[in-house]
């Protein structure tokens, strides 16, 4: 119930900008720490693991955009510029915390150990793809890594995360769910539903908004009038923090604190990571139609990978030789995995009807049989399945 204790007798409106939220940052682009900043504890091994995941992500993105241009895959979506957010948040979690992401969070998967082969099997939709070649490239999922399979409809995962975390709370397993979404997706009705339910039901879920300035061509100034997404938290009595999304140390620390609030107090938290989508929205997009190069360059100068590298160098934990070797190793790894994945066959024809229900219905079975016979009759028209249809 609302606070009716305090009354006033003049009709004062609260300003729409009554709440200003600063951005938490600790690491500067040259790799130095802001004096007096609160930084996360991070040893050399962990810092190296994080850096490696960020570089892997960058390498994967570059290679696969090229592969898309060459017509090897039908679609790709880069996360360039946001690797500090997508790797950093995962590094702050318990590996068994559930992640329910949007689609641009390959960094988190890389951090959790999804292999180059696993990425490639999904991207090529081959017989080893966990998703059985059903979804477009980049719709990864990994049960063992507690990473929910991506689905294209935006924001649907946000209330689902609230529900998932409610189940974790009831199970008493001291875990949380983190759901990641863009500032565009945060406009969906599901966002409001999710945050309100989480706060009133006291659910251990972290809402991580990647505010990267754009939703395809729509700048955030046409997405909302408010100062970002973080101020919405007070509408749900929810704690919130805004963090520099290009500062991996700040992201880690903010998420560690957020996780404490969620897991120790069974309270949802909102984290807004400020960054920029440096690449096109996806391989289908051309940003030159809606934004200028100067803006991009401004953000390119804030490259989160370079920023972390500078810090690693300043710590004496990294060298240019190691840098070169790392890129070479990862490029090789990605290239070889791509070749392997590309050579594998597509999923079998049965994959058309499995997993619709726990077991195919008689109607589905008869539809598959009819299809198999048809493909058998016109094998040249259905090259992907003709082999399987022949063998029965």
């Amino acid at each position: 119930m609302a606070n009716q204790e305090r009354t006033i007798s003049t009709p004062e409106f609260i300003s729409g900008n009554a709440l200003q939220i600063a951005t938490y940052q600790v690491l500067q682009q040259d790799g130095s720490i802001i004096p007096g900043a609160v930084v996360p504890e991070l040893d050399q091994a962990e810092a190296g693991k994080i850096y490696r995941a960020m570089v892997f992500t960058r390498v994967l993105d570059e290679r696969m955009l090229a592969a898309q241009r060459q017509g090897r895959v039908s679609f790709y979506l880069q996360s360039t510029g946001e690797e500090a957010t997508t790797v950093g948040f995962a590094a702050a979690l318990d590996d068994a915390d559930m992640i329910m992401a949007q689609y641009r969070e390959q960094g988190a998967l890389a951090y959790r150990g999804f292999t180059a082969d696993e990425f490639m099997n999904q991207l090529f939709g081959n017989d080893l793809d966990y998703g059985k070649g059903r979804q477009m490239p980049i719709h990864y999922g990994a049960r063992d890594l507690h990473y929910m399979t991506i689905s294209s409809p935006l924001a649907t995962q946000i209330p689902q995360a609230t529900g998932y975390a409610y189940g974790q709370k009831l199970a008493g397993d001291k875990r949380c769910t983190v759901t990641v979404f863009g500032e565009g997706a945060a406009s969906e009705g599901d966002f409001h539903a999710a945050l309100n339910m989480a706060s009133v039901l006291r659910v251990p879920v972290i809402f991580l908004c990647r505010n990267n300035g754009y939703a395809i061509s729509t700048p955030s100034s046409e997405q909302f009038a408010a100062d970002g997404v973080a101020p919405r938290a007070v509408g749900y009595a929810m704690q919130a923090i805004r963090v520099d999304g290009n500062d991996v140390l700040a992201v880690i620390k903010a998420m560690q604190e957020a996780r404490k609030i969620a897991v120790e107090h069974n309270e949802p938290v909102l984290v807004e990571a400020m960054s920029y989508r440096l690449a096109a929205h996806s391989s289908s997009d051309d940003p030159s139609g809606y934004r200028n190069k100067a803006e991009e360059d401004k953000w390119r100068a804030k490259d989160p990978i370079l920023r972390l590298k500078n810090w690693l160098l300043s710590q004496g934990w990294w060298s240019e030789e190691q840098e070169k070797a790392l890129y070479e190793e990862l490029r090789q790894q990605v290239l070889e995995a791509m070749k392997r994945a590309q050579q594998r066959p597509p999923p079998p024809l049965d994959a058309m009807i499995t997993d619709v229900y726990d077991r195919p219905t008689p109607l589905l079975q008869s539809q598959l049989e009819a299809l198999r016979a048809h493909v058998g009759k016109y094998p040249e028209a259905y090259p992907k399945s003709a082999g399987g249809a022949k063998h029965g």
Partner: protein
Amino acid sequence: MAEMNLLQAINNALDIAMAGNDKVICFGEDVGVFGGVFRATSHLQEKYGRERCFNTPLVEQGIIGFANGLAAQGSIPVAEIQFADYIFPAFDQIVNEAAKFRYRSGNLFNVGGLTIRTPYGGGIAGGLYHSQSPEAYFAHTPGLKIVVPRNPHQAKGLLLAAIRDPNPVLFFEPKRIYRAAVGEVPEEDYELPLGQAEILKEGEDITLLAWGAQMGYLEKAAALAEKEGISCEVIDLRSILPWDIDTLARSVMKTGRLLISHEAPLTGGFAGEIAATIQERCFLYLESPITRVTGLDTPFPLVLEKEYLPDHLKIFEAIKHSVNY
């Protein structure tokens, strides 16, 4: 055996499901202390605590989004949508999410534990927005199961089966007969099969098919027809998706005639699917066109709802018409 009305049978099923499995969780608008506006969840919060039976905020898309996540986590959510007319804000979470969850993940994840209960149907002076029968809107969605019980005994057994079925199930409850339908219901735990129609009465001249509250009109019409010497085979479809083609086709091959009735509007209603399938399966056996007796192609009216409903008289007339074709 105990005498129960349909609501009590549902309440009893929920009680048994919750008692037998800690993972079963019931929620929705007003389902907590109050026990739901129809009282289907009465006393469940008292018995199982606020964590397992609770009010949600007023947001259907959130209720089902939350339920999907909870099911993915391994719990067994039984979500209530207060009226089927208000299920549409959750349409995306049902049709794009729940239905496709298992398929799109290659079975890495699924929301098979999900059951959505909702009262549907007219005849209670509810007008446009407390009367709809939206089952056909969902029947075009592979991955969902859809179930409609006709009486208390069926309701309990089908709901228990729905809750335990490893697929998301939409369970439509005929609210017009929530209290009017009374009958003997076994007190113990039992399940009735999903996906199977039931032949309530064998007959020779025409097959009559419906589901839910509409079964009452069907049986009344069959009785009228019998008086005129027309022998009717009466079938309750029970599951709309997947639906029992074989039982129906066998019956129509015997009788040579089929009448299907539902309350929802004609165009795009599920009777269309049934008629299309049966005319193909039973083409050489049909002695007259398959007849549909349904609501009009309008929203549900209030004052003239008697006129709108496909009642026993309309069905009776259609039976005669079919038999005299």
